[in-house]
């Protein structure tokens, strides 16, 4: 009998040599006459331990990591295939505190299954949500999503059920489901891990959405920086279609739903939903003015549900286990769980799915183990390039849409980027403006011009400390214009990192006292 060995195929594992480790395992096992059956799973999300090799012994999955190709021979000699101990041994991975203390609803299968195996997927509750949905009336599916309290995971936090209800009520010959997989925020990789590690979950969520609102066609818009995700999604769509989970007659129900995978082309602003729709239509990714809402006039002018990957990935669980099982997690108006992503200068970076309400400190210190450099953490940027920089004093805030908004911060897509005390916050603020200048679609003036002027103002401030108070005032004025005058979140939220840096770290701007007291 052959021994089952897992080596992840997630790109975070591939980028640190997982393919080389897999090849070494095959070669060295063959040399020793050992029969192994190698499975390329998704990543468990303990990214500092990648490449992580798992071996099945007595029904348990014993892990070793981080494994370098040159470690493989020694590991096999030490008895890896019997689960024997070694300096890289991590024991039963399911018992690892990093995993054990999570609440994995969306990421329940990621890292456990073979991403492209339909058998594996179904053996782990896969398509149970779709089967349940096929027995319900469309309005009842929408009601379940409403009852779950699921909110858009892209950042805005708009209730998914309300969006779906609007599209269900719209009359049109053709409606669409569009997945926003343009995960451009630095510090986020949960969408990528879903697509590479459990693509059928996203397909199932899309199909349920299609049946719920009467859409027969879906698009997945994936950023071009994620070639592995594009490849896995395309293969998964093909296999799911061949097996009858997609197509003109889903599981014999008479319902139709087809999916097309589209590759983006490197524009950050295409993560904004209307710019994304323009791009799907073959145009420049320029933001549209709202109204009309995409729910009424979206892709090709037709009613469209456009949701983030994590929003749709949460749907199969809700349909399979019921809305209450999902809504039982969370706090306030933020129901369910969020796959947080710990990134930047952090020792134990990776994916941590927790119910809303966990604090940033718990994520960074308990799970993350502090900074990678060992120096004190100074700032944490939450929610991507458009999210605020928070100082240590604000890290006890619960991760909840409303609680963060009250402090001028956003949860965004759940990414936390940690910086140690070597960071120059004026430089980070300048970068925020520069990034906006590079990526602005150019449609509205506050964003197009404001970002360039903003970077210049900060540069002047950096060069001439004596002028700092004057330049800071100018900067605040400019941020006010961008905040209130921009068409979308690109220009409208670039002031978040800038102002939070200025408010919480004035010393980096050559300002003695917190400038907001003077303003």
């Amino acid at each position, binding site marked *: 009998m052959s021994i089952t060995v897992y080596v992840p195929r997630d790109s*975070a594992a591939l*980028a640190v040599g997982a393919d080389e480790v897999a090849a070494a395992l095959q070669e060295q096992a063959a040399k020793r006459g050992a029969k192994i059956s190698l499975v390329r799973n998704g990543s468990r999300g303990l990214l500092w331990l990648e490449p992580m090799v798992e071996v099945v012994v007595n029904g348990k999955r014993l892990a070793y990591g981080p494994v370098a190709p040159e470690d493989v021979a020694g590991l096999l000699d030490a008895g890896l295939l019997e689960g024997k101990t070694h300096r890289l041994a991590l024991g039963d991975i399911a018992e690892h505190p990093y995993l054990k203390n999570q609440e994995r609803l969306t990421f329940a299968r990621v890292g456990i299954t073979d991403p492209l195996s339909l058998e594996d997927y179904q053996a782990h509750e896969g398509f149970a949500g779709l089967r349940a949905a096929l027995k319900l009336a469309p309005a009842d599916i929408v009601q379940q999503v409403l009852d779950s309290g699921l909110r858009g995971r892209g950042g805005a936090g708009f209730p998914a059920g309300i969006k779906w209800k609007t599209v269900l009520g719209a009359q049109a010959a053709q409606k669409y489901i569009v997945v926003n997989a343009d995960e451009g925020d*630095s510090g*986020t990789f949960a969408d990528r891990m879903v697509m590479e590690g459990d693509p059928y979950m996203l397909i199932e969520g899309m199909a349920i959405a299609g049946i719920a609102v009467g859409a027969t066609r879906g698009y997945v818009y994936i950023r071009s920086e994620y070639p592995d995700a594009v490849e896995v999604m395309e293969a998964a769509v093909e296999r799911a279609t061949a097996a009858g989970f997609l197509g003109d007659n889903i599981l014999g129900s008479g319902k139709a739903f087809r999916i097309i995978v589209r*590759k983006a082309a490197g524009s950050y602003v295409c993560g904004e939903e209307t710019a994304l729709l323009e791009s799907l239509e*073959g145009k*420049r990714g320029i933001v549209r003015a709202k109204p009309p809402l995409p729910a009424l006039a979206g892709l090709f002018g037709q009613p469209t549900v456009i949701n983030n990957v994590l929003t749709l990935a949460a749907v199969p669980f809700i349909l399979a286990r019921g809305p209450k099982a999902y809504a039982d997690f969370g706090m306030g108006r933020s129901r369910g769980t969020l796959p947080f992503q710990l990134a930047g200068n952090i020792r134990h970076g990776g994916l941590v799915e927790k119910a809303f309400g966990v604090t940033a400190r718990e994520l960074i210190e308990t799970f993350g183990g502090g900074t990678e450099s060992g120096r004190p953490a100074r700032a944490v940027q939450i929610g991507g*390039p458009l999210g605020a920089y928070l100082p240590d004093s604000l890290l006890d805030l619960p991760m909840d849409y409303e609680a963060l908004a009250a402090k001028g911060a956003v949860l965004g897509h759940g990414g936390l980027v940690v910086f140690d005390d070597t960071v120059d916050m004026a430089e980070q603020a300048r970068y925020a403006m520069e990034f906006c200048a590079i990526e602005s679609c150019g449609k509205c003036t506050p964003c197009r011009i404001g970002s360039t002027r903003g970077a210049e103002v900060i540069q002047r401030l950096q060069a001439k400390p004596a002028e700092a108070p004057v330049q800071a005032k100018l900067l605040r004025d400019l941020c006010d214009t961008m905040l209130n005058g921009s068409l979308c979140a690109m220009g409208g939220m670039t002031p978040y990192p800038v102002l939070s840096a200025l408010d919480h770290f004035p010393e980096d701007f050559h300002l003695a006292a917190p400038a907001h007291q003077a303003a």
Partner: protein
Amino acid sequence: MTAMTTREAQAVDAALDRFRDEQGALLPVLHAVQDNLGYIPKGATPALASAFNISRAEVHGVITYYHHFRQTEPAQHKLAICQAEACQARGCRSLTATAEAAVGCRLGEHTDDNRWELEPVYCLGLCASGPSVELDGKLYARITPERLEALIRKKELS
């Protein structure tokens, strides 16, 4: 308008043919052309405009709007270095300086002999294991300046 070579024209025709029945398929067509040739020929604009029944200005606008698309031949080796926040927190600024010195051109430029080009990229989705780079299509994470220099030297010898 620059005329296309036979090879270029064939690549454009093949891409148009492949996505003939797909609505709004300008981006997939451009991807197919660039995947095939390494760039989108300037002379392709009229053919694309006529196939999609849009103006040449609109085609030009789309090609030049997206960072991914290019109209010039790529260098022999392309090194993209992540410049986004998570990699900044893990030392991408000094890594970039190392790369510039090692290949002999600035970020966003290519060497005179077109052997190397350095490209900024804003997030490769490897934010817990930065700094990360993409070298000739392969991802590398947890890259130190020393490892990057070694990777560059290896490519130089190949």
